């Protein structure tokens, strides 16, 4: 999906979850001073809930880019025969990440910051390198699991730092969903679906 088409999709997604960001708009974790068209490099560093929203929005975009690439590879026959459930996991998770991204972009815009529609620049080279090595369904599922774990761990690490209860709740709900993506991916990979008693954020991005 191109950035343009994704933006169109996000417009619809944002309407669906419009209520979710309302608390942030009311309570506000951000300290924005108005909308800006400049890049983050040209403005003071973001802080608080807005900084977290900026980080996870970049990661959500990164996950979407990876899933788009995996779906394209599958459609082109480059992964061999793809079991129906694996395709369904990626497609369903992708749709849910679009909703998650819409929530964080609402948080950003409520804080006077621009929406994020590009992948996290820090992690993108590493994951693109992993993507280039994917040649089969197993590799695709492992890469999907990795990006889900990164995102879930990032939410886990961020939750105690969030100020607004609405942001906390949104992050917690997304953490739960992402961990469910992980569990089914592990099952598909033949692994123990819930390997740890307590999740530790050892793959969290920052």
């Amino acid at each position, binding site marked *: 999906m191109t950035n343009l088409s994704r933006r169109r999709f996000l417009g619809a997604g944002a309407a669906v*979850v*419009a*209520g*979710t960001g*309302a*608390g*942030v708009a*009311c*309570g*506000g974790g951000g300290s924005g001073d108005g909308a800006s068209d400049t890049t983050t490099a040209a403005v003071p560093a973001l802080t*608080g809930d807005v900084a977290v929203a900026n980080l996870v929005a970049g990661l959500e975009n990164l996950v979407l880019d990876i899933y788009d690439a995996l779906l394209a590879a599958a459609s082109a026959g480059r992964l061999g*025969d793809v*079991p*129906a*459930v*694996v*395709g*369904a*996991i990626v*497609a*369903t*998770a992708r*749709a*849910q*990440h679009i*909703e*998650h991204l819409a929530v964080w972009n609402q948080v950003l815009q409520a804080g006077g910051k621009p929406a994020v529609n590009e992948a996290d620049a820090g992690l993108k080279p590493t994951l693109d390198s992993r993507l280039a090595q994917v040649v089969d369904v197993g590799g695709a599922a492992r890469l999907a699991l990795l990006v889900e774990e990164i995102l*879930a761990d990032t939410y*886990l690490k961020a*939750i*105690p*730092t969030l*100020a*607004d*209860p*609405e942001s*906390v*709740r949104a992050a*917690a*709900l*997304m*953490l*739960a*969903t992402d*961990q*469910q993506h*992980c*569990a*089914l991916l592990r*099952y*598909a*990979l*033949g*692994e123990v*679906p*819930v390997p*740890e*008693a*307590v*999740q530790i954020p050892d793959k969290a991005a920052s």
Partner: protein
Amino acid sequence: MPGEMTGDADDVVPTPTPGLDGERRTALRTIGRGLGLLAGGCLGGMVAALPASASASSARGTRADAALDIQVLQTAASMETLLVDLYGAALGTGPEGRNAPSALAIAAMPDVTARDTLVRLLTETQAHHREHRLAFQTLTTALGGVQQNDPNPKFASGVAAADVSNPLRLVDYAAVLEKIVTDTYTLDLTLVENVRAKEALAGVMAVEAQHLAVLRVVGALLRDDKSVLVRIPIGNDLVNLPAAMAVIAFPRAMDDVTSSSSVAEPQSGAVL
């Protein structure tokens, strides 16, 4: 839904607790009414003045903050006990031993590989809940509270009365309880101040959500008479796993609380 959960919406509206500050009492009442947080309410603004981090709150925290945190942790421990006991009965290690209805049901499963897989999953899940309970109990005492060792009274009678006399009913009922604890800890995260409590609740909630996804999938497979796909590793049978399992495992992008009766409010498992 197998079994009956006790209580209705009116019953579970928390009684204001002496010593809690007004804003957090208000937040608790809001939770008792089913939150409506997705409806665009301004709870965020209402409690925005709360400290941003528990480290900050610990420096300037109040006894009321600690009291609510302790209640949350005690109630969490009480929910973990319910789950430990549910799985223990199914594994034949509860008070009824191998004669527990759920243990008998599992033992009678005709597909031995599916049975062994289910036993493995339940064993691992019970071990997780033991660790969760210990974590919550340890945090409770660290905050100066009394350790909660009993099952949650709000849900205990419902669990005791639940019909778990066949594997599908057991798995479905376990999923109900896993959803309850996932929802409960999600809401707790918006209430607690102590950073260690937040970290524990988040780390445990994330695992409960995974348990829920697995149970949903296993339940769907048992319901559709596809126990042959209850396998770890699933191996070549992966191609036979229905695509619908994705939506069954994670049906919504944000699987929010649907009923106020489906959470354990902080007071529900508190002890003095």
